[in-house]
């Protein structure tokens, strides 16, 4: 593998930490408002599981409706 393929430890740590923050932890039924650039996009008042994108992609590929 070349230098471009080698991981930066700092970048890996940040990616893994954010992945765990949204992919791990205690899951509680609640409400969430997701906004981008200050605009509310959706309000969900049901049990919601937020997952890393690659997990969602895999779930979709497997035909499941939620991660």
């Amino acid at each position, binding site marked *: 593998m070349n230098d471009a393929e080698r991981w930066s430890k700092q970048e890996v740590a940040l990616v*893994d930490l954010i992945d*765990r923050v949204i992919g*791990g932890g*205690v899951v*509680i039924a609640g409400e969430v408002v997701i*906004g981008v650039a200050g605009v509310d996009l959706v309000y969900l008042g049901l049990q919601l599981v937020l997952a890393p994108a690659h997990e969602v992609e895999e779930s979709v590929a497997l035909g499941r409706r939620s991660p």
Partner: protein
Amino acid sequence: MMLLYAVVPSDATAPDVPGLAGRPLEIIRAAAAAVIVEECPDRLSATNHEAGTFAEIVCNLAESASVLPVRFPTVLTTRSAVLAELQAHERVWGQRLRDLSGLSEVVIRAQWADAEPDSPSSASGTSYLLSRAAAMQQREASVAEISGLIRDWAREIKVLRSQQGIRLACLVAGTDIPPLERAILRWQEAADRRQAVVSGPWPPFSFAVDQEAVHA
């Protein structure tokens, strides 16, 4: 709205630091556990920046108490809703806090020379399926090999999804992290074109829920 950060022991105190929305962190207590929360405006964005700040706050919390991080972004409408949720789960959460006391999470990423990205290639049909099967076998063998190398220090191991190589979340005591890192370094140096990175330690994000209790 109340943004939930982490479940903590019932005798813990809320740190004197602002939360994600710049407001004071509060603690809502029950007999066996408590929850650190922040009253937030109704609009909460959940970008990588907010997730990173949330992680920083939870990591700081973990320096003074055992924590079960709450998945970001979880919000409940009122303090009484948080208390109701806490009272419904306090026994299980209190037990898990005791189980995880003094333990942290590290994540091991490992890849090797022929580790292929987990995405469709231009090949099709039998050759693609054969290459995918070989890649899966290589991954499983690597998971088994590395799990064996760290079994003396990792109390629990979870295989995380990875688009290239493998990722393992490991539950470890602080004193066990240096020997675990040395074992991973030896694995990397045992063959050409291997790479491994150990990230953390962090609060036990991947181990907040006792899967055996969930499935019991």
